[in-house]
C-alpha cells in the first residue's frame, strides 16, 4: 500500500480570534495533482503555505511521509523544503541575481554542487522551460510569464518530491497564463506530485486528479474533477461553480 507524501490531521489556523479554517484533514498521494479552489479569503494560500511551514498552523499535525512537519526545528525544516518545493504568485525571483544565479544559489548552498555543475544544471533546466537564452538576464528585464518559468525551473532544480503552486498564474497577463499552465501540465504528465491553489478552472478540471474545494473554514468537498464539476455535493460549491463558470 502506498503511503501519502503529505498528510494533514485536524489542522486549524487562527489569526488572533479569526478562524481561517478548522480541523482540516487531507492527504496527498505520490504522483497526485491536487487543485485547491474556492472563494477568495477561504484560506487556500494559507493552507498551502502551512504545508512547508512558511506559515505555522495554530493546531493539528502535518506529516511528510512519517515525519511530523509541525514538530520540526530549523534544520529539519530546511531539509523538508528541499523536498517540498514552492512556486509563488509573485514569482519572488531574487532581484539581485541573474536568472542562472537564481537557480544556482540553492544548488550550491543546499545541494553542495560546485559552480560548474550548478551552472550546467541551471542551463539544462532553463532549456526545459524555454529560456536558455535568458541565463544572464536579471529578473527585472523579464516578463511575468518568463519570471514564473524561471521560478518553476528554480524549484525543479532541487529535485523536489512535491511542488506547491500558490496561484502561479494570478499575477500574469492573460496571454502568458497558457505557457505556465502548459509547463505545469507537462510536469503532471511526468508524474510530479503537485498541490495547486488556482483560479484556473480549466486546469483544475483537465489536469488535476483531485479537487479540494475550500470554503466556510473547511475543505467542504474533495473529489475527482469529473464528479466535482458535474455534481458538486454542497450548495456552497454549486453556488461557487455557477459564479465562476457562467461568467
Amino acid at each position, binding site marked *: 500500500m502506498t503511503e501519502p507524501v503529505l498528510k494533514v490531521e485536524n489542522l486549524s489556523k487562527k489569526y488572533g480570534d479569526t478562524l481561517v479554517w478548522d480541523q482540516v484533514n487531507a492527504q496527498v498521494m505520490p504522483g497526485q495533482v491536487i487543485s485547491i479552489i474556492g472563494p477568495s479569503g477561504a484560506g487556500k494560500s494559507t493552507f498551502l503555505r502551512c504545508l*512547508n511551514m*512558511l506559515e505555522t498552523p495554530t493546531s493539528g499535525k502535518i506529516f511528510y511521509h512519517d515525519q511530523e512537519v509541525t514538530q520540526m526545528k*530549523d534544520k529539519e525544516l*530546511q*531539509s*523538508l*523544503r*528541499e523536498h517540498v*518545493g*514552492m512556486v*509563488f504568485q*509573485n514569482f*519572488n*525571483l*531574487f*532581484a*539581485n*541575481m541573474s536568472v542562472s544565479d537564481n537557480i544556482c*544559489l*540553492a544548488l550550491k*548552498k*543546499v545541494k553542495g554542487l560546485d559552480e560548474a555543475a550548478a551552472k550546467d544544471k541551471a542551463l539544462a533546466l532553463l532549456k526545459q522551460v524555454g529560456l536558455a537564452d535568458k541565463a544572464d538576464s*536579471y*529578473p*527585472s528585464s523579464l516578463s511575468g510569464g518568463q519570471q514564473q518559468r524561471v*521560478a518553476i525551473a*528554480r*524549484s525543479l532544480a*532541487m529535485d523536489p518530491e512535491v511542488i506547491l503552486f500558490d496561484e502561479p498564474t494570478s499575477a500574469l497577463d492573460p496571454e502568458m497564463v497558457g505557457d505556465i499552465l502548459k509547463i505545469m501540465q507537462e510536469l503532471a504528465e511526468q508524474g510530479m506530485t503537485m498541490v495547486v491553489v488556482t483560479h484556473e478552472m480549466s486546469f483544475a478540471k483537465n489536469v488535476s486528479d483531485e479537487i479540494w474545494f475550500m470554503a466556510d473554514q473547511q475543505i467542504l468537498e474533495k473529489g475527482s474533477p469529473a464528479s466535482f464539476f458535474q455534481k458538486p455535493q454542497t450548495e456552497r460549491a454549486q453556488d461557487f461553480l455557477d459564479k465562476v463558470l457562467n461568467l
Partner: protein
Amino acid sequence: MFSFLGKYWTLFLQGTVTTLLVSVIGVITGFLLGLLLTMMRQSQNKILRGIATAYIAIMRGTPSMIQVMLLYYVLATALPLPQSQVMGTGLDRIIPGALALGLNSGAYVSEIFRSGIISIPKGQTEAGLSLGLSRRDTFYSVVLPQMLHNTIPALGNEFITLIKESSVLFYIGVNEVTAEALGVGGTLYDYIPPLVVAAIIYFIITQLLAWLLHLLEKHLSSKY
C-alpha cells in the same frame, strides 16, 4: 582677500588631509558597526537585540560633541595611545576622534539598514527559505545585497554628514580643516576669509563623494 593662502596654504592642506583621514576611518567604522548592529537587531537573541537598540537610542539621543569629548577623555586616561604626530595632530587625539565619529555614525547607518531591510519584499526571504536555504544564507545572499544596493543614496547622505560633523573634533584638539581655519583667522584677526576657504574645501570633498556615490549607484542599477 585670499592672499593669506600664499603663506598658510600648507596648514589648510594639512587640515584637509586630517579631515579626510578621520572621515575615512569614521565612515569605515560607522559602516561596519552599522552592519553589526543591524545583524544584532535581526538576531533571535533578546540580549543582543536589546544592546543594539539601547546603543542606537543613546547615540542618537546625545550630542556628538559630548560623545567625542567623553571618548577622548576616557581613552586618553585608560589607554597609552601613541603620541606620534600625523599632519600636526597627535595620534592620541586622531584615534579617539575618528572612532567617536564612527561610533556615532554606526547608529544612524544601522537605522538606514533597518529601513533598507523593511523595504525588501518578504517574498524574497520566503523564496530563499522555500528552497531549503537557511535563514542565515537567505539573509546574506539575498536580503543583505539588496539592502546595501537600496540604501546607497541614504548612506551617501550619512557619510556627507559625517564629513561635515568631523569639525567637532576641533574641541579635542584635532587640527582638521575647521581648526586650521580658526587658527589662521586668529592670526589674521579676520575669521571670514579662512572660514570661507574651509567651507569651500568641505564643499569640494562632499561633492566629490556625492559624485562617486552616484557613479556607484549607476553602475549597480544597470544590473538590476
